């Protein structure tokens, strides 16, 4: 009896400590930034919090000075276009690598694994020169192509892991019943693998919203590119407008954070499956 009480009280203490640590370490900095983004400029470093003085002025300023509306629209379009390439091709490639044994399967697997290892930054010089030779600098299509190429290795890896975990009996039965092979992929595998495709979709969209370095190298026109370029523009041109910068960083984070909060399961399964199952 006494030990039971003892253990419970100790667990409560750990719980308390965990909550305290997490709230001060992770939540408070974010809350402070959100509060500052809502307060007038003169309160930037003061500790007064007066909800009646809250204003959207900072957001309006960030919107205009960072061209954030235009950047948000173009990032969304780029993310959707990237998904339109990554999802179907990642899915069929993952399927082929999971279900078929063919000559060259090892090298293909190695290629995708190897591409995961080589970071985009290392290839950026070559990519820049290639797209500039094709006269595709400052063209959002080049961003879509680059983001697709850099998202595909992980997408293939995740889809392969997901399909490997599905039972293959139904596919074999369908083949014997005379279903065509594309038909099997479309009608049987795809519906079963849909949660995996969802995970890849969330990760791809968030990756585009996170990107900065490639976009800032490739794009020249203000308002066309990714949201982080807008935020960077604010940072370089209005470096002492801290409330405006706070509003800007809140705004470029809203879409990825909302996506994560709504689709937490898919997001986390994608994050973990990629590394642990390999």
């Amino acid at each position: 009896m006494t030990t039971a009480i003892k253990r419970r009280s100790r667990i409560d203490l750990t719980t308390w400590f965990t909550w305290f640590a997490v709230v001060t370490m992770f939540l408070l900095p974010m809350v402070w930034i959100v509060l500052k983004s809502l307060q007038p400029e003169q309160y930037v470093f003061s500790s007064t919090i007066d909800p009646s003085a809250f204003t959207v002025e900072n957001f309006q300023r960030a919107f205009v000075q960072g061209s954030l509306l235009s950047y948000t629209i173009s990032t969304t379009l780029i993310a959707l276009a990237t998904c339109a390439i990554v999802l179907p091709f990642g899915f069929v490639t993952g399927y082929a690598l999971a279900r078929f044994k063919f000559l060259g399967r090892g090298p293909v697997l190695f290629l995708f694994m190897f591409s995961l290892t080589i970071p985009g930054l290392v290839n950026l010089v070559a990519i820049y020169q290639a797209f500039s030779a094709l006269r595709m600098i400052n063209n959002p299509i080049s961003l879509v192509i680059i983001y697709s190429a850099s998202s595909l290795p992980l997408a293939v890896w995740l889809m392969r892991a997901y399909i490997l975990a599905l039972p293959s009996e139904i596919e074999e039965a369908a083949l014997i019943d005379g279903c065509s092979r594309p038909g099997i992929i479309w009608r049987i595998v795809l519906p079963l693998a849909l949660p995996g495709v969802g995970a890849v979709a969330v990760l791809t969209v968030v990756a585009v919203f996170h990107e900065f370095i490639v976009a800032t190298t490739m794009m020249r026109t203000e308002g066309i590119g990714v949201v982080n370029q807008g935020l960077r523009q604010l940072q370089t041109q209005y470096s002492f407008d801290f409330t405006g910068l706070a509003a800007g960083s809140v705004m470029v984070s809203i879409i990825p954070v909302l996506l994560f909060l709504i689709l937490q399961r898919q997001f986390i399964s994608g994050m973990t499956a990629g590394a642990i199952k390999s």
Partner: protein
Amino acid sequence: MAITAIGSAENVPLRRKRADLFPYLLILPAGLLVGAFTVLSLMFTGVASLTDWDIGRRVVSFIGFANYLRAFADADLIGAFFRSTVFVLSVTFISTALGFLLAVAVNRKIRGQGVLRAIIVVPWVISELATGVFWMILLQPDAPIGFITGGPLRTATGSMVALILVECWRSIGFAMVMVLASLQSIDESLYEAARVDGAPGWRMVWLITLPLVSPTLLVVSILLLIGNFNLVTIIIALTGGGPIDATTTTALYMYQHSFLYFHIGYGSAIAILMSVVNVVAMGLFILLQRGRGAQN
């Protein structure tokens, strides 16, 4: 499971006889795109690293391994590599350790488990640039955190420590999620047995949990190692590599040479050296995994 799936697909007689083009067809688009990007880019960078390609030069000529010789003698690059090492090892160690502890803490039947987990992962979902920008504000000498810590971004050491801790703040959630996933596969009865034997909680974590999740800790460490070695965006936003060059890492140094000074040849040589570091890290990881597999 995986092996039977492949094996049974093989047993379907239709697929066995002729050389089957279907899987190649499925792989072709993604394989071409990724292959072109990785292999061609690497080849291009490799060739460019042997030239004196520079913004002001009309005629580009091959200069052999001069860029590499220059790199090994470049005090700034060596300094940057040293800072990279400090940065990468600190972030990897702190994030993995704290991610592990938080995962253990959150994994118990705790009130508000889901909310806690979400709070810890949100920083990983915010972009590097936004994270750098708002921590730059938080660390201003007049802002609460900056005031307590004495405005760290004004000094060289302070900037490096700040950079390390901000990057940890971002990546702890990643480490925690990975460890959490592997904790959930541990057999509960192992703890029951230890509890019957009267082992205290922290001993169980040390003797049971830690060895069981150590493969995952290895995966997390390698991913953080590689990720942080190639990180530039958060540095650009938080410190810009400064003061002077106090937070200029290898990756940022390479970026500056390639895209600010347009020393394409020299930048490419550094890029190739960076890929070597990446590939060695990944190779080491695969070797460790294999060794582990052979043990079990």
